[in-house]
């Protein structure tokens, strides 16, 4: 009989061995790489330029070494039959029986694709029903949407969903009046209102989908291990159509298992939280994990944008374990559809991760969390460091080359280094590409799931080429983000364009990505004059910069994505019908049926006023105003008259919201819209009336 894993029996020796082996490998590799670089400098004596390069190299090479050893330890555990210290191995089949403790599935949303969000919820609800686990779970859709049409559409979608699933009283929808502190504020608001009713909450993103089986298993893991405060799953990318999304979901499917296994190897109970697709023990979360303010002087910037890593650190600080159920199938999310959207998301993450710097030296933060924070900060800072390193390195090589020509000495720095430079170059390339090769090796036995051996190998090669070309472009933009954030510019939480039915236009792509080719042109020209011999060395980076806009354009084209799917390139198991979970199939079906009724300008206010059902749903969900001061009453009166007589374009979004939050105003508008003679309505409202009449005609005919 297979022995289950007992997290509470992990010994200090066990933890120490794992961390010593992992960090020892990183330190050793970094030291070796630094020594090799140092050797290349030594023959001529180290200059200040070389010292600067050495310092930067230590920081940058440790990052490469960390990635490499994550994959290596992941590979080692994979060939040994998987890590025995996995939280998922702490439960048995019998733990999945019996009643489910109250668990809330919490989905904060912000101007999302409503059809997709509610489709995901429906799929999960049915998944839970199929898993026989529906009883313990309540769903909460927590909206911070700041577009009237999103708000109204969400309400109607919620009504129809609850009606269809007979889930009133089990699936709830709440719109916050004051969306304070973004997503973390929204979740905290839920905790304050209803958290005490639930033992666990599963936090999802708007585009998350989790299978009913996995939701049930997560609860069982928490029930079995009372010391565990949070279990994070690995959300796999799914449902992509554009080449960009399909390539990244392929890469994540292929490479993530080794990196995630390696991550679990060293941190064990000191895992990280990624903000969604995770289960949380509610009581300690309420008690210990409300986000503190940052000690920054500017009040506008005091709130923590990227809450997840900090919440994991606070949970650990409070004495609870944070585990990573990395190998559990059934956890999905969607990636950005194109390079531009991906960078938009990175811009927000960059701000969040840089803010975490404050926690790096805070007393009481667990070592593992400090390392997560360090990796998060380095994910973006490293771009600036790489850029500086490249500039210094190129100048250094050019200077050396000139000196060698002037002194008429055998001036090839590579030859002078005694083979250290080629060795370092090869070592770096191995460290960058070996994890990909090992991931491919591990996946070969299940190549059929990736479309066969040839598509799998071809996909890996193509992905490696494209991601290598994209990396220098990302370096430029990440550097720009870091610099702009450090200069104090705000980064807002904006909805992603999760629809991938429309690619970037060619000119649009150039408009967005003009900077890399511009830099490439300047750098190439300068190098042609001052450092002609180093152009070849820099060519992969220069080529990436030159091709940036074209890559962004090509990889955003949905039709090319469809073609790649037909050729089975970048195929992931979820794209094969028999391997796709029912929940994902359901979401895929739902997103095909787009609701066009909400796509015209001011659709939200139009429906709230003209549609008796939408008006009633909206009014029924609003809180009854207790009293109204005279000035407010007069203001509301002026706004609603203006809305009907001058049309919705005469009001700004804030004024639309003022009316939408007032039940009396909506009742009045609804009444006036239907009772006024047509010629007394603004032409825009006359159009709405004509539509309503046409709609009624169709209904009668039907």
């Amino acid at each position, binding site marked *: 009989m297979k022995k289950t894993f007992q997290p509470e029996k992990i010994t200090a020796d066990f933890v120490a061995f794992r961390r010593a082996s992992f960090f020892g490998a990183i330190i050793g590799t970094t030291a070796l790489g630094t020594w090799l670089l140092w050797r290349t400098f030594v023959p001529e004596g180290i200059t200040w330029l070389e010292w600067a390069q050495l310092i930067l190299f230590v920081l940058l090479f440790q990052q490469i070494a960390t990635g490499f050893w994550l994959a290596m330890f992941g590979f080692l555990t994979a060939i040994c039959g998987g890590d025995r210290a996995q939280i998922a191995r702490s439960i048995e089949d019998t733990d999945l029986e019996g009643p489910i403790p109250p668990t809330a599935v919490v989905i904060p949303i912000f101007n999302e694709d409503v059809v997709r969000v509610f489709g995901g919820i429906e799929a999960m609800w049915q998944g839970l029903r199929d898993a026989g686990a529906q009883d313990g779970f309540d769903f909460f859709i927590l909206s911070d949407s700041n577009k009237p049409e999103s708000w109204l559409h969400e309400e109607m979608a919620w009504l129809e969903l609850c009606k269809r699933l007979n889930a009133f009283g089990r699936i709830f929808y709440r719109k916050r009046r004051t969306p304070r502190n973004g997503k973390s504020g929204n979740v905290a608001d839920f905790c304050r209102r209803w958290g005490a009713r639930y033992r666990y909450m599963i936090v999802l993103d708007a585009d998350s989908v989790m299978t009913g089986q996995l939701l049930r298993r997560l609860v069982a893991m928490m029930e079995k291990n009372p010391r565990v405060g949070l279990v994070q799953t690995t959300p796999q990318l799914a449902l992509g159509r554009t080449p960009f999304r399909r390539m990244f979901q392929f890469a994540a499917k292929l490479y993530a298992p080794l990196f995630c296994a390696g991550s679990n190897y060293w941190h064990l109970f000191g895992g990280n939280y990624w903000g969604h697709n995770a289960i949380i023990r509610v009581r300690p979360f309420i008690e210990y994990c409300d986000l503190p303010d940052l000690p920054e002087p500017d009040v506008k910037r005091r709130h923590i944008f990227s809450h997840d890593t900090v919440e994991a650190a606070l949970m650990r600080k409070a004495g609870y374990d944070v585990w990573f159920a990395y190998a559990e199938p059934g956890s999905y999310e969607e990636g950005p559809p194109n390079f531009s959207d991906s960078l938009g998301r990175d811009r927000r993450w960059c701000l969040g991760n840089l803010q975490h710097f404050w926690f790096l030296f*805070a007393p009481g933060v667990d070592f593992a969390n400090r390392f997560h924070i360090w990796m998060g900060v380095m994910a973006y800072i490293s771009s600036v460091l790489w850029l500086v390193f490249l500039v210094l390195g190129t100048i250094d090589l050019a200077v050396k080359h000139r000196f060698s020509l002037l002194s008429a000495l055998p001036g090839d720095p590579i030859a002078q280094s005694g083979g250290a430079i080629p060795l370092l170059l090869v070592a770096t390339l191995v460290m960058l590409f070996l994890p990909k090769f090992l991931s491919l090796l591990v996946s070969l036995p299940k190549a059929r799931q990736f479309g066969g051996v040839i598509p799998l190998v071809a996909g890996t090669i193509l992905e490696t080429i494209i991601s290598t070309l994209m990396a220098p472009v990302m370096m430029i933009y990440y550097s720009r983000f870091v610099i702009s954030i450090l200069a104090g510019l705000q980064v807002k939480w904006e909805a992603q364009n999760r629809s991938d039915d429309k690619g970037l236009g060619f000119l649009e792509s150039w408009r967005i990505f003009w900077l890399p080719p511009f830099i490439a042109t300047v750098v190439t020209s300068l190098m042609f004059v001052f450092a002609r011999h180093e152009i070849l060395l820099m060519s992969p980076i220069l080529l990436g910069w030159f091709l940036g806009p074209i890559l962004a354009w090509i990889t955003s084209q949905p039709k090319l994505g469809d073609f790649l799917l037909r050729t089975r390139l970048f195929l992931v198991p979820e794209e094969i019908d028999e391997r796709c979970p029912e929940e994902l199939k359901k979401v895929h079906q739902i997103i095909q049926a787009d609701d066009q009724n909400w796509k015209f300008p001011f659709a939200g206010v139009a429906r709230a006023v003209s549609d008796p059902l939408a008006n009633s*749903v909206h009014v029924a969900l609003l809180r009854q105003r207790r009293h109204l001061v005279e000035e407010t009453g007069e203001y509301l009166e002026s706004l609603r008259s203006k809305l009907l007589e001058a049309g919705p374009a005469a009001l700004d979004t804030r004024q639309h919201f003022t009316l939408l939050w007032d039940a009396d105003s909506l009742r009045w508008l609804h009444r006036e819209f239907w009772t006024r003679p047509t010629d007394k309505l603004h032409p825009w409202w006359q159009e709405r009336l004509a539509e309503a009449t046409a709609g*009624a005609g169709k209904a009668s005919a039907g």
Partner: protein
Amino acid sequence: MDPIATAAAWDEAMSRLLSFLAAMHIGGVEHRTRVALAMIDEARKQHALKPEVAPVEHTMHIALRDIEQWFGEALENVEMPASRRVAAGIVGLRVTDAVNRWPNAVLDGSPPADLKATLARVSFRTGPDLAVSSMTPRAMDYGAMETLAQETWHRFAWAPIVRAAAIWTAIFFAALYTYDYLYPR
């Protein structure tokens, strides 16, 4: 009044009323037409008394009045402000599929008792009963970095920093070049 204009005005009133009732989903075409005709009859009587008011206004005011009365009666056993009853009633009809179960009931006489009971059971809320918790951030000690930041930033200005950085950079490079000049490799 021009008889053609009057006929057009009544057509508009009828069309508007039928559109409204259809948008409310209160029953089939036959039921809606029957309800609408009754309302139009009453509107004609009122229009005879107040011809300055347009037929559409008379008709729709009567429709909204009847709806208010009907839902007021349908939800009389439910504790809620009178102003919210219509909204709650329309939502209730939709949620419970009452129109399919009682296809001719809405706006046609008093609501049947079982329909009233069905509407009263509708739970239409943004969440379960509140169970309020206090969630407040604990004081966070950020250690030496915070101390450093506070000491630095309480009286912070960019200009002196930039000037100082420029001076020190100049000194640094000057020193390096001097060194290189004095001790050439």
